[in-house]
C-alpha cells in the first residue's frame, strides 16, 4: 500500500529537479547589466531579507488566509445545494454555473473583474480596482468553484439519514447543521481550505491585473525580479525563501487539519 505513493513521488522528483535548476542560481553573484554571473555568494539571501520582500510574503499569507475563510463561507451553501438537491435540473444548473467560471480562463475572469470593479459598470462607494479589496474579491471568486466542488464531493458522502434523524429528534435546522453536517464535512472543509490556501499563496494573474502594480504577492515579486530585472539569482533566492516559509506554514496547518478531522 505504501508503494502506491511512489509514482507520485517520481512526479515530484521531476518538479524538484526543475526547482533545483533554478535554485542553483541563488548562490551566484548577480551583476546588473550583464547576463554573466560572478562567483559564489550569499548576498542574494541577504538582499531578499529586505522589508519590501518580507512584507510581500506577509501580505501574501494574510491575503491567502482571508481568501480561504471567505471562500469557505461563500462556497458552503452552494456546495450543500449541489450535493443535496433532489431536483436533477437544479443540480445540472448549479453544476454548469459552478464550472462556467473555470472555463472562462484565469486571464479572462480577471479582465472581467477589471471591468466590473473599475467604475464603468457600477460606481463603487470605495475604490475597488487597484486595491487589496479588489484583489481579495478576485481571489475569492477564483477559488469558489474549486471549494464548491470539493465540499460537494465531501457532503455527498454524508448520509442524509443522520440529518433526518437529528431533525426527527427535534433539532432545529441550524442545530442539525452545527452538530451533524458541519462536523461530518470537516474533512472536506480542511481539504478544500488547504488547497485554496496553498493555491492562493502562488496567485499571479489576479494581483497582477487587479492590483495595478500596487498589490504585490509572492508570485508578482518573483516575476519582478526574475523577469523585469532579469535578476535570476535574486528571484531564485526569494523563491527559495518564500517556498520554505510557505511549506512550513502548510505543514503546520496540515497537521492541525488532520488532527481536527479525526
Amino acid at each position, binding site marked *: 500500500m505504501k508503494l502506491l505513493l511512489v509514482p507520485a513521488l517520481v512526479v515530484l522528483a521531476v518538479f524538484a529537479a526543475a526547482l533545483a535548476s533554478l535554485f542553483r542560481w541563488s548562490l551566484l553573484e*548577480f551583476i*546588473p*547589466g*550583464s*547576463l*554573466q554571473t560572478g562567483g559564489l555568494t550569499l548576498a542574494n539571501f541577504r538582499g531578499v531579507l*529586505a*522589508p*519590501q520582500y518580507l*512584507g510581500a510574503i506577509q501580505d501574501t499569507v494574510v491575503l491567502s488566509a482571508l481568501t480561504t475563510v471567505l471562500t469557505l463561507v461563500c462556497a458552503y451553501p452552494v456546495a450543500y445545494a449541489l450535493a443535496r438537491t433532489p431536483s436533477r435540473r437544479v443540480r445540472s444548473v448549479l453544476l454548469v454555473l459552478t464550472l462556467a467560471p473555470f472555463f472562462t480562463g484565469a486571464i479572462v475572469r480577471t479582465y472581467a473583474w*477589471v471591468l466590473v470593479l*473599475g467604475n*464603468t459598470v457600477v460606481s463603487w462607494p470605495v475604490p475597488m*480596482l*487597484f486595491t487589496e479589496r479588489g484583489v481579495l474579491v478576485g481571489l475569492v471568486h477564483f477559488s469558489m468553484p474549486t471549494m464548491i466542488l470539493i465540499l460537494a464531493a465531501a457532503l455527498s458522502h454524508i448520509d442524509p439519514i443522520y440529518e433526518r434523524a437529528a431533525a426527527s429528534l427535534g433539532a432545529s435546522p441550524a442545530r442539525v447543521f452545527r452538530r451533524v453536517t458541519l462536523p461530518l464535512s470537516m474533512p472536506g472543509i480542511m481539504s478544500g481550505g488547504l488547497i485554496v490556501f496553498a493555491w492562493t499563496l502562488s496567485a499571479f494573474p489576479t494581483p*497582477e*491585473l487587479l492590483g*495595478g*502594480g*500596487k498589490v*504585490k504577492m509572492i508570485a508578482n515579486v518573483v516575476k*519582478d525580479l526574475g*523577469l*523585469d*530585472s*532579469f*535578476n535570476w539569482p*535574486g528571484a531564485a533566492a526569494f523563491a527559495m525563501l518564500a517556498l520554505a516559509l510557505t511549506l512550513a506554514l502548510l505543514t503546520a496547518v496540515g497537521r492541525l487539519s488532520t488532527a481536527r478531522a479525526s
Partner: protein
Amino acid sequence: MRPRIVVTVLVALLILPLLGVPARAQNALVVSTWGGNWKDTVEKVIGKAFTAKTGIPVEYEVGGTIDRLAKARVAKGNPLVDLTFTTTHVARLYISDGLYEKLDMAKLPHAREIAREALRSDYHVGSWAYVYTIAYRPDLVKEDITKWSDLWKPSLKGKIAMPDFDPSHIITIAALMEGGNEINWQKGESRLRQLKDSVAAFFSTDAQSQDLMKTGQGPVQVMLSVNAYHLQEQGIAVKVVQPTDYPGVVGIDTMAVMAGTKKADAAHQFINLALSREIQSELVKALRAGPVHPGAVVPANLRGQPGIFLSAAEWKERGYIMNDEARAKNLPGWREWFTANIVKK
C-alpha cells in the same frame, strides 16, 4: 464504468503527444519578436518582402522582451531562433553573454544610409524608434499639459499611470530636472518621491497601458508613442505631448543575428532589407513608429509628432537617448528603489 475503454483512451492520450512535432520548413528563417501588432507588421512589411526576394520562408517566435531573453540564454550555442528583435538596452544583456554574432557590415549596405544614432553597436542595429512621453485625454483632463513638470501638479493627483516594469523614463526625467542624468540618477530621488501619491495605476504591458487610457482610469500617462497613435487611430482622443522642458525619452528597437545560427546570411539579408528606404517607409505607416532611415516617407498625420524623427538634427534635439549600458546596469536597482518608494503604499 467500462475499464477496457477507459484504459484504451488513457493510453492513447499518453502516446499521442509524443508522436512527434509537426515538421516545419527546414530552411525557414526564424525571427524572434514581440507579438500582436509588432509581429503582424514585421511579417507583413519585412517578412513578405524578404520571402518574395529570396524565396526563404520566415517563421516567428513571439513573446515578451524578457521571456524571449530567458529562452535565448538557456539555448546558448544552439539557438532556437536566427534573428532577434529587442529593445536597445536589453540587447546589451544578450551581448554580455555572447548571444549575438558580430554584424558583417559588408552585408548591410543600407546601414550606411541610416541615422548614426541607430547604429547601436557592432552587434545590433536599430529598426525603428519611438519615445516615451506624456499622453493624455483632453476630454477627461480639463487642462493643458505641455511639459514634464506638469505631472507634479496637484490637480493631476490620482490620474497618472506609468510603467512599473521599467521606470527608466520617469527616473531619467526627474534626474534631468535636478541637473543629473541616468548615470547619477540619485539627484532626482526627492523629486520622484513627490509623485508617490499621484499615480493611479502602474501597467506592465502595452495592452494594459492602452486599456487604462481607453477606460479613462489612467487618463494621463507616461506612454509609448506607438500605443498612443494606435489609440488615436481607433478614434480615442489622445493628445501626445512634445514636452517643452525636456524631450521625450527615446526607445530604439533593434535587430541582431544570433550567435551559432546556421542562417547568418539570410539574417543579414533580412536586416539589410529592413533598413532600406522603401521598407522603412512602410514600417512607419504600419507601426506609427519613427524610421531609422531619414529618407523614409512619413505620412502627413505623423509628421512633426513626438517620436518621429525626420532628420539627423531631429534625432539629437527632439528626443533624449539614454546610455544603453547605464540603463541596463541600473535597471534592477531602479526597479527596486521604485517599488519600495513609489509603488508601495
